[in-house]
């Protein structure tokens, strides 16, 4: 049997199996999920050879499955992350009810993502896209009543995106007569000079999943409301599906730039870039004022996606490289961070940063993961985040010299320091609270995935080449030829790459040692001052303005940026929704309950047709 079909089949049967097993022995459905994904990972990395194509036809439509160098990057990302997440969620989801529901949808989501990676034609792409969407929607609803509203928002926006995509797909079929992606690209479906709305529609479709600015409103709630073990792949991997599509479309749009559509392409570049930049800034600003760690992480991942889109929008070799690199790194550290939040939530019961602090003693491994990932997120030198951002800046400055955008991004990434530090401090540092005395370290099956991710971060920080290699191949598929990871920014900064590895590695080792030393030292008794009772130069601050990291540290900032918070995108969308509701409520009043009115309608209709009969019905 064909390997692709085999994998899909395994996934579906795994979904059904975990649903059934939950009825018998709820404990094992998580394990079933883990095993299913593990089997698929094994099959994928042993059996599938890249650039192999499988032809088949469904419903009279020619379809193709296959993996190429570009999608391979995302395949690694999706499979690895979902494997770890499924391992993580065994304990995390323990003794919740409706586990079968959760796990079957979990597997279905992964199926969708992998199917998207497999499919080389638009129809199967769309099918798997939709499967991914609705299964993830069901998981967003998992947490019950208070999450159903955000789930609705998510579903509506996904539907808008998906249908924009479908419009583009069918009009490609209408104009070029094919559903195969590569053929469509060859025939110039994405060529701006031929038709501009097909690529735009597709981009809109992908932008929804990638949470680009006007369409991002679903993301924060959906990310923070769904179970953390799922959010780690929801934000880590699924958003990258949007990036995948955008990369594909944009690459072919840029490659088909000709004289007559230079301007429109330029406009597209600018618009996308600025949208990405604004997304980054706004999301960062919103992340600053969050007191719930999950919300904070959700906004920050929106911001990170903004960077990635900026990178894609440049369309230059370095920019796209930066985008892809950031995509991978972001998946890793954001997955890790959400896992951390999940661990805290599991052990403490809340992720409200104003309530808990000083978990460092209780959960050192979690703290280690958090620290590493935060460093990566903030883009502090030793780790990958820095590499990606540096490449991005360089791309923006040197290649597409777009200085304002650089400024915007730089601002947002500096602001990112603030909230990332708040996350770290609010949860882990400082003195313990009374409530968190009983807290213990998370169970080992939750620690392992987190630590693995942290180590991945360190290693990729040390050897970025590990990531550059597949990315370089992928970019070669996209048409950016002679990409070799020697031309990475690292060379320009520190000269030779190899000893760069030593430097990074040594930095990493030193860092780990210091960290362990500090933690051990931390265990020695220290005088116990509550984190919130600080005294600034002798005077006791009033309660309403307590400038600790946990409470009102960002109050001044918030005051400064008040107008930005006042009219948010959410409000605009909500007003739109209310207007539509009014319209719906109006239309149904046509059906007045009076039977005679209906009869009158019939007669009026008849008369109108009779009057216009000679204009309507002629042959």
């Amino acid at each position: 049997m064909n390997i692709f079909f085999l994998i899909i089949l395994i996934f579906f049967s795994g979904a059904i199996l975990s649903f059934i097993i939950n009825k018998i022995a709820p404990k094992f459905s998580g394990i079933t999920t883990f095993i299913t994904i593990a089997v698929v990972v094994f099959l994928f990395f042993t059996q599938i050879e890249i650039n192999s194509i499988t032809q088949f036809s469904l419903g009279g439509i020619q379809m193709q499955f296959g993996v190429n160098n570009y999608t391979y990057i995302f395949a690694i990302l999706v499979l690895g992350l979902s494997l770890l997440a499924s391992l993580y969620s065994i304990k995390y989801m323990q003794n919740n009810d409706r586990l079968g529901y959760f796990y079957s949808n979990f597997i279905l989501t992964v199926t969708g993502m992998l199917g998207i990676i497999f499919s080389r034609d638009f129809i199967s792409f769309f099918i798997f896209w939709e499967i991914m969407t609705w299964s993830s929607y069901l998981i967003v609803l998992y947490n019950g009543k208070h999450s159903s509203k955000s789930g609705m928002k998510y579903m509506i926006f996904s539907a808008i995106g998906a249908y924009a995509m479908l419009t583009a797909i069918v009009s490609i079929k209408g104009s070029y007569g094919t559903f195969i992606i590569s053929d469509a690209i060859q025939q110039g479906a994405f060529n701006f000079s031929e038709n501009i709305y097909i690529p735009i529609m597709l981009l809109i479709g992908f932008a929804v999943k990638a949470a680009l600015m006007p369409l991002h409103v679903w993301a924060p709630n959906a990310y923070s409301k769904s179970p953390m073990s799922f959010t780690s792949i929801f934000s880590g991997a699924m958003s990258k599906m949007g990036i995948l599509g955008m990369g594909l479309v944009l690459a072919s749009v840029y490659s088909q730039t000709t004289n007559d559509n230079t301007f429109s392409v330029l406009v597209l570049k600018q618009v996308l870039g600025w949208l990405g930049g604004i997304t980054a800034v706004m999301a960062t600003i919103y992340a600053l004022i969050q007191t719930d760690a999950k919300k904070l992480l959700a906004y920050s991942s929106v911001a990170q996606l903004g960077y990635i889109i900026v990178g894609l929008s440049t369309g230059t070799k370095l920019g796209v490289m930066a985008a892809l690199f950031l995509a991978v790194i972001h998946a890793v550290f954001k997955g890790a961070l959400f896992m951390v939040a999940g661990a805290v939530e599991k052990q403490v019961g809340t992720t409200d940063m104003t309530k808990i602090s000083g978990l460092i003693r209780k959960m050192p491994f979690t703290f280690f993961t958090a620290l590493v990932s935060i460093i990566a997120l903030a883009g502090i030198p030793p780790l990958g985040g820095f590499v990606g951002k540096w490449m991005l800046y360089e791309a923006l400055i040197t290649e597409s010299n777009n200085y304002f955008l650089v400024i915007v991004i730089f601002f947002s990434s500096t602001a990112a320091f603030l909230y990332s530090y708040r996350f770290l401090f609010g949860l882990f540092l400082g003195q313990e609270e009374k409530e968190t005395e009983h807290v213990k370290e998370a169970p080992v099956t939750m620690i392992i995935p987190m630590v693995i991710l942290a180590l991945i971060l360190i290693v990729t920080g040390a050897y970025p080449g590990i990531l550059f290699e597949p990315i370089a191949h992928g970019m070669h598929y996209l048409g950016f030829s002679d990409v070799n990871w020697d031309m990475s920014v690292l060379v320009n900064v520190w000269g030779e790459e190899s000893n760069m590895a030593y430097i990074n590695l040594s930095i990493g080792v030193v860092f780990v040692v210091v960290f362990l030393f500090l933690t051990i030292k931390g265990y020695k008794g220290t005088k116990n001052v509550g984190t919130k009772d600080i005294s600034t130069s002798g005077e006791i601050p009033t309660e309403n303005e307590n400038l600790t990291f946990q409470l009102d540290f960002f109050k001044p900032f918030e005051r400064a940026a008040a107008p930005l918070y006042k009219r948010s995108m959410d409000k605009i969308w909500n007003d739109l929704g209310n207007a539509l509701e009014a319209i719906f409520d109006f239309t149904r009043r046509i059906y007045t309950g009076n039977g005679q009115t209906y009869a009158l309608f019939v007669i009026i209709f008849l008369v109108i047709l009779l009057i216009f009969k000679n204009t309507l019905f002629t042959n």
Partner: protein
Amino acid sequence: MVITPIHYIIVPLIAAFAIPLISKIHKELYRIVPGIVMFYNIIISFVLMKEVNEVGYISEIIAGWEAPWGINLIITPFSGFLVSLISVLGFLIWLYQYRFKKVIDVGEIKSYGIMQMLMITGAIGIIITGDIFNLFVFMEIVAITAVSLTSFYRGRDGAEAGFKYLLIGSFASAMVLLAILILYTQVGTLNMAEISERMHLVPQGIKATILILFIVGFGIEAELFPLNGWAPDAYSQAPGPTSAAFAGIVVKAGIYGLIRIIFTLFDIDGAFDFLIIAGLVTMIIAEFSAVKQTNLKRMLAYSSIGQMGLVLIAFGIGTKEAVFAALFLMFNHAIIKSLLFMTGSILMYNSKDKTILSIHGIAKKLPYVSILFAIGSFAIVGLPPFSGFWSKLYILTAAANKEMILLIIAILAVSIVEIVYYFRVVSKLYFAEDTEHIEIFKPSINSLIAMGVLAITIIVIGVYPDLITGYLHNAADMLLDKTSYIKFVLNNNVQIQ
């Protein structure tokens, strides 16, 4: 005795006339016999479909008079497809309502089964008859049964809905009668094949008038926009199985009438554009009105109207693939909407004040029904991998091939609205805290089987649509090729391979 199309009509009639007698033996026969008849319908369909696949058409003449003079029953791949769909649905609906004591007290009113059966027979008759006045008679059978089934419950609203239906329905029959009258004066025959053969003799103005009368008449049954005021009331007040039958069977008959008239009888081009416009208006208004409904069955009714609008749009596009897509959509709508009505009526029955608002978290008490409802709503909004997706995709592709980008956008925008109201219900079903319910009435096993069969069909077709696409393509071709229809009916020996 060799099986011929007439069995569709005489067997149920024999049963209907005989049931009052034989059920003096045992009361249960009132309920069992219709089921047997429905099952026999499936057998007939099976046999006839095999035959149709070999020879393009089956035509049977009544009372030994050749086609233009006597009444003839004709089964084309198109009508055969609809008829077998209706037969299967009819049997499933019977299976669903069998022993459905709570919702339909068949022990109390014995005639329920008979009327349901004869309504389905009337729908089949509308589809297989080749004579326009005979079609009118079957329309009347359907109308009367539908009205009396609509006002079947003792409550006050049943009668109201029934009266509205009767008022508008008698308009429909009057229009059709008038149209037949004028048509007869022009072509001097009632046989559809001969009518379409002689249609070119009719002067333009009169032709347009006839077409308009037919459109109004059948449009009422097919729930075109300004004519469908009766539909939401009737759907929401009828017993659950009957609503399922309305959505799955009666509407199909109305659509068939409209399509047969426009495609076979008339040769007017404007009719197709009219279909698109009317379908679009119908779809938009119905789907909009569905959003703020609180009665689940009424919401489903509006959604059903909207789907019919989509079907009309697809027929109006008029190309082969569009007709194919329309047939696919009719198939999907039949099974999915029947499933939704079956499950929805159970849910409504169990909700405290018979509104959507009070079915919070009922899924805990009725897990299977809720899952089936969820499957149905996923399918109807056209999410893969359920069967609804394919029909939507084919319609969009057909529209795209004629460069109707605005139409595509409109259809998709409307399906976003659909998603809104269906998923609102689904999320209420599952993910709201459960309020206390009146004692839950659990559906009996046979109802579950009936619904399960439909759900499995939805999924199987969704995963592997090729099961029916080939056949539907054939049907679409046959519908569009009317010369062979005429030739075959008028001299009975020609057989199109």
